[in-house]
């Protein structure tokens, strides 16, 4: 201890001459530390900002697609227009080819009090009604010819431009010549809206209609059915094949060249660009095997091949997570290897496998590029009855609508994206719930 005690003299010396603090740059280093930390936070904020921007831009553009403007008016099914010569009893084609748009136009003109002799005005009145009215009224008349000569209240789709104007998407400050609705049409629109004849209804057509060149009549019906077929095919094929392949690789495969080859293959297939699978599908399934183009079957097969690596990787992870003690116990009681796997390991790994499968399916649902190549970019108006009929898929429909020039299609596109995202969210939430509910910690 005596060596440590300092003499009073040295203490005084120390107090008087403070040793110069060596500049080790602490201030600078701490500043750089703070900066570095800030960069990290900024990076995360940047990512989240764009996630927010992306979602909000889609939602703000697309939520209006779920409402569709309809005009409910009393329509007089005048015999004069539909069947002037009274031939419908002998020639049913008359009802198919009758001039239904005029029926609707006259009805609307009557409500608005427009003089039927004023041709320019009548044309503008006709411009407020969707062209799909032809099909709508035709189906109504063909189903029940007795409406001819009577007056019935019908909810008619408004024209896409009127729909956009009613939703406030058309800038009315622009000169009349440069926008798609005239001042007179806007006036009528407001007049109809005040009486309640023109109003937004929930857009069921968005989920049931097929392709149409008129935005107000275009829907996702065909695409939803096509995607459903494809998902079923992917599920039915890729789950058993993927699970079987993983079981072999994880539980039975000897360590040899063949096994290594399969492993390398699976890892690489998981990283092959999806468009290459489209080329494979086009060359093998369509061109070589002669399956029909645009069919959901081909799409399903291509997506199956694309999803398999994902499912195999997830399943192998789930199998690996089952502790060896389970296997040892089963084997010790005399079970064969196969029995051990199928009776004990597989059931325990099932939640993990299903989670991986759902995530793989979600990926397949959003995949577009390979489907473009096998001809699913098709104008399909009728809902496909079997997976062999021409169909489109949800993301392909989005692609086709995104390429349409009309303003009203932007709304449809965003609406379709919202539908797609909702499906994806549901699937992912399902996967998370499944994992939470059944996951075991060993």
């Amino acid at each position, binding site marked *: 201890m005596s060596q440590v005690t300092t003499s009073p003299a040295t203490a005084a010396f120390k107090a008087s001459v403070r040793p110069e603090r060596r500049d080790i740059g602490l201030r600078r280093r701490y500043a750089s530390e703070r900066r570095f930390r800030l960069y990290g936070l900024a990076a*995360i904020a940047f990512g989240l900002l764009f996630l927010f921007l992306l979602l909000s831009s889609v939602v703000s553009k697309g939520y209006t697609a779920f409402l569709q403007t309809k005009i409910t008016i009393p329509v007089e099914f005048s015999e004069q227009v539909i069947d002037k010569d009274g031939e419908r009893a002998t020639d049913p084609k008359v009802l198919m080819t009758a001039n239904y748009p005029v029926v609707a136009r006259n009805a609307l003109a009557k409500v608005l009090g427009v003089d039927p002799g004023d041709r320019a005005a009548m044309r503008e009145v006709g411009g407020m009604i969707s062209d799909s009215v032809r099909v709508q009224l035709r189906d109504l008349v063909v189903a029940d010819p007795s409406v001819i000569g009577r007056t019935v209240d019908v909810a008619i789709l408004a024209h896409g431009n009127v729909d956009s104007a009613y939703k406030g998407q058309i800038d009315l400050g622009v000169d009349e010549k440069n926008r798609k609705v005239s001042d007179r049409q806007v006036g009528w629109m407001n007049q109809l809206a005040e009486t309640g004849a023109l109003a937004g209804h929930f857009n069921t057509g968005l989920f049931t209609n097929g392709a149409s060149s008129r935005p107000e009549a275009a829907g996702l019906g065909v695409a939803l059915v096509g995607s459903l077929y494809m998902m079923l095919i992917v599920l039915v094929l890729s789950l058993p094949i993927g699970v079987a392949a993983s079981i*072999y690789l994880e539980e039975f495969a000897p360590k040899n060249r063949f096994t290594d080859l399969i492993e390398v293959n699976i890892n690489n297939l998981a990283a092959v660009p999806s468009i290459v699978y489209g080329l494979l599908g086009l*060359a093998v399934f369509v061109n070589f095997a002669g399956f029909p183009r645009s069919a959901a079957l081909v799409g399903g097969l291509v997506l199956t091949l694309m999803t398999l690596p994902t499912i195999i990787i997830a399943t192998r992870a789930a199998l690996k997570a089952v502790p060896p003690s389970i296997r040892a116990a089963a084997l010790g009681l005399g079970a064969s290897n196969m029995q051990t796997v199928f009776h004990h390991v597989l059931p325990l790994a099932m939640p993990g496998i299903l989670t991986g499968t759902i995530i793989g399916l979600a990926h397949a649902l959003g995949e*577009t590029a390979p489907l473009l190549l096998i001809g699913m*970019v098709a104008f399909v108006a009728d809902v496909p009855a079997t997976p062999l009929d021409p169909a489109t898929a949800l*993301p392909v429909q989005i692609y086709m609508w995104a390429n349409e020039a009309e303003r009203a299609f932007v709304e449809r596109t965003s609406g379709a*994206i919202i539908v797609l995202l909702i499906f*994806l969210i549901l699937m992912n939430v399902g996967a998370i719930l499944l994992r939470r509910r059944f996951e075991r910690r060993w």
Partner: protein
Amino acid sequence: MSISLLLLLVAAIGVTGYVGGNRRAQALAGGRLSSLHSRPGYYGSLVAIWALLPAIAVLLVWIVASPVYIGSTIRSGFPEAVQAEPQATQNLNYNMVGAIARGLKLLTPEERATISADAAAARALLSSKGVPLAADPAPYMVEAAQNLDRMTTTSRMIVTVLVLAAALAGAVVAYRSVAPRLRARNRVEGVMLAGLVGASSIAILTTIGIVASMLTEAVHFFSMVPAWEFFFGTVWDPRFAAAGATDSSGQFGLIPLLAGTLYIGFVAMLVAVPVGLFAAIYMAEYASSHFRSVAKPLIEVLAGIPTIVYGFFALASVGPFLRDISAQLNGLATGSYASFIQAQSVLTAGFVMGIMLIPYVSSLSDDIITAVPRALRDGSLGLGATRSETIKRVVLPAALPGIVGALLMTASRAIGETMIVVLAAGVAARMQLNPFEPMTTVTVKIVNQLTGDLEFTSPQTLVAFALGITLFFITLCLNIYALYIVRKYREQYE
């Protein structure tokens, strides 16, 4: 008998076989199940397998072989003059024969007789039954169609008999072989194992399918366009030919497409790498577990959004925004409000693709940074380094090989990405350095060449396969190299 009905019958035989085998095993055991080698269910399964597998094998062979055999027989029956016609016309003829044969099934015997007497009447008669024909059939076609109809009917009958016989024979043989000493479980498990091996070789088959299908079409393409013109050509101008024209020759230079692909990928990496890396560093080194549990999944949501959504975002929001803001900037600087960034441009596509790639970079690097052993950090911190100094001087150098691997994987994704560039990059194949102008990529051109009406003989469509195989090999090399680096690095600390 239709194929689905046949399958149903075979399945019924299989189920009966299972029940029968099961019962017989139990009966043989006489209440003492331990006298059996396997549990009774395995005997049942064995009988079912014997019933199903041979029958299905016969059916598969028939499905593949019979159209080929019937087709060649019918074609060889065509008149000499018809056989001399080019392949495409022959195919059309054969398709027409097929259509007539389909229609024949709907006709009454009298109508059939009129058709064979008068071929010209066939078209009207068939279209009244809902089978439209493209043209009036020649007399030999009706004859061939009737032959075809007859042959298909016979071959169906034969296959029905064969399949049912195979199923029954298999079931009976297996049923009779059921005995207490029969090692049924081992046999069933052998079949199961074969099934497992088969399922896992699908991965190999897929790769073979990809390479083989693209190579054959690409070789076909290179027989029309020299390979060096494709790989080193600097002009892309395929000149879409009218259907049927054969003399059209465009220029298929890969270089402008490759340049666009790499440029857009480079811009994307410029966005994704710094953002992704810093996000990963923050998540791994600084973030509290609470913050991490919220922010990490949110960032990964970006990876779950389909690329078509990014494409639309680029097309409808980012592109117009960049265009307008460039007009404003230009106006402030020079007074002329002309935009210098086009809505479809390298910048738009690259930037949006960069956002898409952020989660790939961040989660891969996050894993790698977390895998760096604690001891390295503790040593550095113990010597007085700040955390950022530890990260910059110790953790990152240690993680560098892994991060490079992760970046290579991300780059391969950027190169193979399709939907964003299809919607946001433009279609003009040009070589230039201005990121504000549109450029095009390999994937865009694959989509362009293969959507629409196809003719599988023209270089305009076949070039897509040459592009595809180029893309496949570039991404394959990147991935193999990346996996190699990551594996090697991982072993260092294990």
